[in-house]
């Protein structure tokens, strides 16, 4: 059949809407659609989209560390050529709630009198070697280049050793980019570091001048080991 028999588009559409009751149902559905789409669109465009984009976009944050210290002192006498391992239990260090162990500083102090006194003015400084032992007892960053795990001295100076316990922690504030505060602080909220016990090995080698010393025969040394634990809690401040 030719084009004469072809129906016009308006007639065709008119047939679809030819039942009044169906049109009423259609109108109700249309009203429901308008309400639902209006509501969906409003909450999406006004709040949800912005929140999602914010969450996906990195901001600059200043990461600040509030630091708290806890220390303990251990005094003991070492005999000549004696090597001892002293263990410090991390539970004995008291840090405020929520603080994480960032680093541990060990200070080995020889007896302050060992470099000559009025009684023994020519006494010599003893040779002391100190090591922080990685014997598996402490969770820490043993491979960090920031660590100072060994030291020795024979000039009556303090030996200062340090061990980084929390990954990347050096106590300095720094800038970081992250999508939100939670993500900015996420690297600074890992529990479990700095747990266990710290083993410090100290070896003494007494230097003495037997013939010239008037009073004392120097074959031992009082050594003080001070362990200082730095705890930190991080906070993030939005820069831009």
């Amino acid at each position, binding site marked *: 059949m030719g084009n004469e028999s072809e129906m016009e588009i308006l007639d065709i559409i008119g047939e679809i*809407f030819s039942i009044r*009751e169906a049109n009423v149902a259609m109108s109700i*559905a249309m009203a429901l659609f308008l309400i*639902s*789409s209006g*509501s969906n669109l409003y909450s*999406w465009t006004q709040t949800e989209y912005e929140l999602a984009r914010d969450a*996906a976009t990195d901001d600059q944050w200043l990461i600040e560390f509030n630091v708290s210290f806890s220390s303990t002192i251990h005094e003991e006498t070492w005999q000549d050529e004696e090597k001892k391992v002293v263990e410090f239990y991390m539970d004995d260090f008291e840090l405020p709630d929520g603080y994480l162990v960032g680093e541990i500083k060990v200070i080995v102090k020889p007896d302050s009198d060992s470099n000559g006194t009025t009684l023994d003015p020519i006494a010599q400084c003893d040779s002391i070697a100190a090591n922080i032992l990685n014997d598996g007892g402490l969770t820490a960053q043993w491979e960090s280049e920031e660590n100072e795990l060994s030291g020795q001295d024979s000039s009556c100076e303090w030996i200062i050793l340090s061990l980084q316990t929390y990954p990347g922690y050096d106590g300095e504030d720094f800038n970081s980019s992250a999508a939100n505060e939670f*993500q900015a602080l996420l690297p600074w909220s890992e529990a479990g570091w700095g747990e266990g016990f710290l083993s410090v090995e100290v070896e003494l080698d007494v230097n003495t001048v037997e013939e010239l010393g008037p009073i004392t025969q120097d074959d031992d040394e009082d050594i003080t080991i001070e362990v200082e634990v730095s705890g930190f809690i991080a906070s993030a401040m939005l820069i831009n």
Partner: protein
Amino acid sequence: MADELYESFNELLPVASVVHIALGAMALILVHRTKDKEWNERFAGMLISWMMVMLGIQYVCSTIIDYRVDQLGNSDVSHFNTYDDIFYSAMSYGQGAMESAFHATIVILPLIYPYPLIQKQNAIRVCTVVILSISLILVPLDIFTEFSYRWVKGILMWSGYFIWIPVYLRFLFGEMLYEEKGARAISSATLLLLLAVYGQVYIFWLQDLTGAASIYFSRWEVEDLVPQTFLSSSIAMIMLALEGTTFLVIFFGEMWRSFRKGMGGLGLVVSLVFVVGVIWYILTLVNYDTAESCIQTICQPWNENFVDWYVFTYQVAKFLGVPLVFMFILLNYNMVDTDAEGSKMITRIMVLLLILVATSSLIEMIQIILPIPEMITSALFAAGVVVFIGWEERIMDQIITETSSAAESVKNLLGVSTISISEGEYRFFSMAMICLISYCLLIALLLDSMGIHE
């Protein structure tokens, strides 16, 4: 979703690609052999067949992408080291291109079936030009914009909502109030088409209607490599309302009919979707914190059982439900001539393929979730095969012989223009579709090889 965490996720993709391509190809053979049907029935059959082929090729690309994602970091078998490499690859472009072609094709279907809005002699030529024009523009544009206008592209899918829903209501009321003979054939065909095209999203109807589903869109804004633009995601909010509203229309329509005329198969299916939608809404509320974690804190992975539920509802509906419903429409609504020479055999293969593949896939998936020994599932599958072979004749007869023609009913009830379409025009359409698919794949390969996003 980090799919390597979830065993069942995308498990059906390879099966879906094979099923869609095989069924699409067989349906095309059947449609081309069909001679004495209404032009719009035959053309709709061709559109559905080509859409199945397009979906199948799209799923092939998705399967390869999924495999590559699984192999990320394993340099022995994959040269894709990051997700970016996969996202900007030929497979990803191919997947997007086939999706665009599918959208361009589906926009036509509601215009011609079951009630043909286009009643012109040149209908097929016009439709072919429209599909090709949309695809030619949409395919490269979608790739250039890194798929960030997905929901703008999705507007093409809305033609079904705006045409099929009024058609469904017109013929439902015609049947219920005015007892129009044959009106049910049209309303049921329309309803099945709505379920075939939108069934997988209708299971989210309640969360779509209330807006709870927007939390997933917020999460995707954070998670996706290239997030959707403001325009695209805003259009998605309108789409959610459309999905929810149109589902309620068909649900109340079918319930009304069921109260008056008794519950039929379609009433049961729609009721099932209704219940699944309510469960999905509850589960969305339960998993709201996980969904919201991306926005509030950091993205938390989904609960594994939640992912299994997603697979068993959304992915089963999408990958197995869609071909099942389309095949049922083709066979039950007399769109193909199953009595033609050789057609019966192809139809039989189609039915068996669909049912057996669907059954075996589902059994396989159940095995992933429930710790059932393989011996038991193999036995169950064997039993299923025996039952289907035994009942195959009966299932076939039921589908083929108890048919109704929606086009015939439209003709009798409202009258349509008499249009004669030459055989050459159908062949021209199929050739155009082959060219379109070739264009999509070629452009994906070329744009990848030229490294447009590097």
